[in-house]
């Protein structure tokens, strides 16, 4: 009796508030990035986080490039505008972040956006760098004032994109660090300020180091001749497989296509560069090939308090199939992705929507499920590889309690 169940009622309500499905002639990035105009994300039901991920690993086409060039020409003095290539974005964004073309006060959102464009940088690190920039340009004279400013900046970042878990977690972590160190206020304000900035810079290094630690820890779990199934484009997973390839391990990777972002295509591209034998599957072929698989490996957008993960749509499905066929499911995630959420079911998170392009026009009466992510409960995960070590899902709550309380 699904038509009486609560989830159906919720879906109907959300459908009534939804925007229309995108037109077919637009390609992957159907609209220019939403941050071009205002600090607030105007398309609030389309997740900016997933837009950026698509941008990072999108297959670049010529129309997209043309669009991008046109946009650069139009918004040349608007910082945070998209560049044709990421190098331009970094320079233009970095410079534009400090002083705005239109003379507004320093905006943490724009700074954040400029950092976010770099494909190698994780969201949480970009957030922390933006907050460090807030400290640098702040006019506060005491620790209390600085904390208040930071809190305001952190709240505005969090509310700008409520769907990104690592963003929230990164902001919270930094705020926690700030409030904890300010308690030991025996030094003068400027040195405390510089210490905070230094810590923020270090955090960026920690992020890259975290990936290497995870890659090292996970090597023992792949034996020679194993077949690994991956889903989604996770930079951590890529690092893991790169390290395994460098250590001359023989393994084979099965890569799901990852509709609608086509992450599989990009990922298999990267793997082919490493000379790793890779096989592409469509998403529906996972159960069919599951008996050839030895290990399933995912990244995570966020790790929640129950020990489950939030990741690209399709992860839960694959974890379920793997669990029923007794294949181990491993997750590679850095510790700053741990968040104090606790979803009870799939619909218990704030929705993150991505427009899906089917290639053919869809009649307007037909609804499309556009959620970009799902929640995998902890009972389907075997182990998590983090920079804190190799953990079982129940340890996540332990770490969170020690960190946040």
């Amino acid at each position, binding site marked *: *009796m699904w038509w*009486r*169940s*609560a989830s159906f*009622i*919720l879906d109907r309500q959300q459908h009534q508030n939804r925007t229309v499905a995108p037109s077919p002639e637009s390609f992957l990035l159907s609209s220019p990035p939403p941050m071009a105009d205002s600090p607030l994300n105007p398309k609030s039901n389309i997740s900016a986080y997933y837009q950026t991920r698509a941008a990072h690993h999108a297959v670049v086409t010529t129309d997209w490039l043309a669009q991008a060039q046109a946009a650069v020409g139009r918004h040349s003095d608007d910082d945070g505008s998209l560049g044709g290539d990421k190098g331009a974005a970094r320079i233009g964004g970095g410079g534009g972040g400090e002083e705005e073309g239109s003379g507004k006060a320093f905006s943490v959102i724009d700074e954040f956006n400029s950092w976010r464009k770099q494909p190698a940088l994780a969201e949480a690190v970009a957030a922390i760098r933006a907050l460090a920039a807030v400290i640098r340009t702040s006019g506060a004279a005491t620790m209390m004032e600085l904390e208040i400013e930071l809190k305001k900046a952190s709240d505005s970042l969090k509310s700008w994109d409520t769907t990104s878990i690592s963003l929230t977690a990164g902001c919270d972590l930094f705020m926690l660090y700030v409030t904890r160190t300010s308690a030991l206020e025996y030094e003068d304000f400027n040195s405390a300020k510089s210490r905070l900035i230094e810590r923020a810079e270090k955090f960026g290094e920690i992020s890259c180091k975290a990936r290497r630690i995870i890659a090292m820890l996970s090597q023992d779990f792949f034996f020679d001749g194993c077949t690994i199934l991956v889903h989604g484009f996770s930079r951590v997973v890529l690092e893991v497989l790169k390290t395994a390839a460098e250590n001359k391990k023989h393994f084979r990777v099965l890569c799901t296509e990852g509709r609608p972002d086509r992450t599989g295509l990009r990922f298999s591209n990267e793997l082919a560069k490493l000379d790793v034998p890779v096989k592409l599957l469509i998403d529906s072929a996972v159960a069919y090939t599951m008996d050839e698989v030895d290990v399933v490996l995912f990244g995570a957008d966020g790790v929640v*308090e*129950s*020990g489950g993960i939030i990741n690209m749509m399709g992860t839960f499905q694959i974890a379920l199939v793997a669990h029923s066929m007794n294949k181990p499911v491993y997750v590679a995630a850095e510790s700053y992705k741990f968040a*104090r959420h*606790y979803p*009870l*079911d799939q619909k*218990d998170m704030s929705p993150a929507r991505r427009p899906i392009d089917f290639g053919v026009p869809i009649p307007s009466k037909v609804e499309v499920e556009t959620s970009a992510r799902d929640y995998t409960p*902890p009972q389907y995960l075997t182990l998590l590889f983090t920079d804190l070590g190799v953990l079982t899902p*129940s340890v996540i*709550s*332990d770490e969170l*309690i*020690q960190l946040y*309380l």
Partner: protein
Amino acid sequence: MQYDDKSRVEKAKKRAVVKQTEARNRVELFRHLPQYEHGTQLPDLETKFFELDPMHPAVYKVGLQYLSGDIRGGNARCIAMFQAFKEAIKDYSTPPEKTLIRDLTARISSYVSFLIECRPLSISMGNAIKFLKNRIAKLPLALSESEAKSTLMLDIDRFINEKIILSEKVIVKHAVTKIRDGDVLLTYGASSVVEMILLHAHELGKHFHVVVVDSRPKLEGQLLLRRLVRKGLSCTYTHVNAVSCIMQDVTRVFLGASSVLSNGTVYSRVGTACVAMVAHAFHVPVLVCCEAYKFHERVQLDSICFNELGNPDAISKVQGRKEINYLDGLVNQENLQLLNLIYDATPSDYVSMIITDYGMIPPTSVPVIVREYRRDHLWS
């Protein structure tokens, strides 16, 4: 104390204030738990009221209230006990040749054994008493008697305020985020925290429906139902034998707990395990709301080794229905044993989340809370 050890039971009876007569037909498996004839002690105790020298009248009053069942629920019992102890401490004066700390501790222990005779302690009360004895032992020797007494009373007030009242507010704040419009929430029995959660969610304007599941012989759900209906919530009422029928329409289950043990097992009113297991079978999330002071380091694998036995007459008779008298005259037969269990243990696999004043945690994290917060709080 294990009540199947005859010599210890004899010794305890000699010291007892309350004269209990043991029930005759006892279930073999539960011989280690005390089982007394109900209804025989009250008249005897009432006559003794003016003769009790060592017992403080406030403590006596609370004991009688426990015996007759006027006060029920972990939080209520704990608060009542602490109010009585506060009175007792206020009226306390150190006898000559004795130190405050030792004598007061002995006094409190005697009060506690009286309360145990009236009704076995709940786990929340046990933790609270441990806290009080700890505070008494930590009193600096240099304090004068009146200062020591006022310090203790302040500590008791702080405990009640922080661990019970404020933590209920925090739990309500967390739990209300898990209630969405259009939800059908199921609850069992009458838990004070769950009642506050539902009322608060209603005040916030959320639209949801409540199913109150109840069971004999206590029928505690009716109390909860009255309060909810009076505030305007839309409710459904049913008994526990229908829970598998109603569970298909339910979206969330909120349960209270008498305690949560170290392995994540929830120790709560009998019938809770049943509701949690049915919910699990229907993939409905089960949220247990419990204050952190009720957590205990004990591990329990079944509902037998530690429990409480209630009045067997309550299950052989139905109140208000004189015509249901099929068991009259059979009660004292040897081949009939009536078992009225008060608590049961729900394994942690059936619990999705525990909501405490430290936030929402999975059941596997209970020993983490016990470890981290017992150490640096008022317990160690």
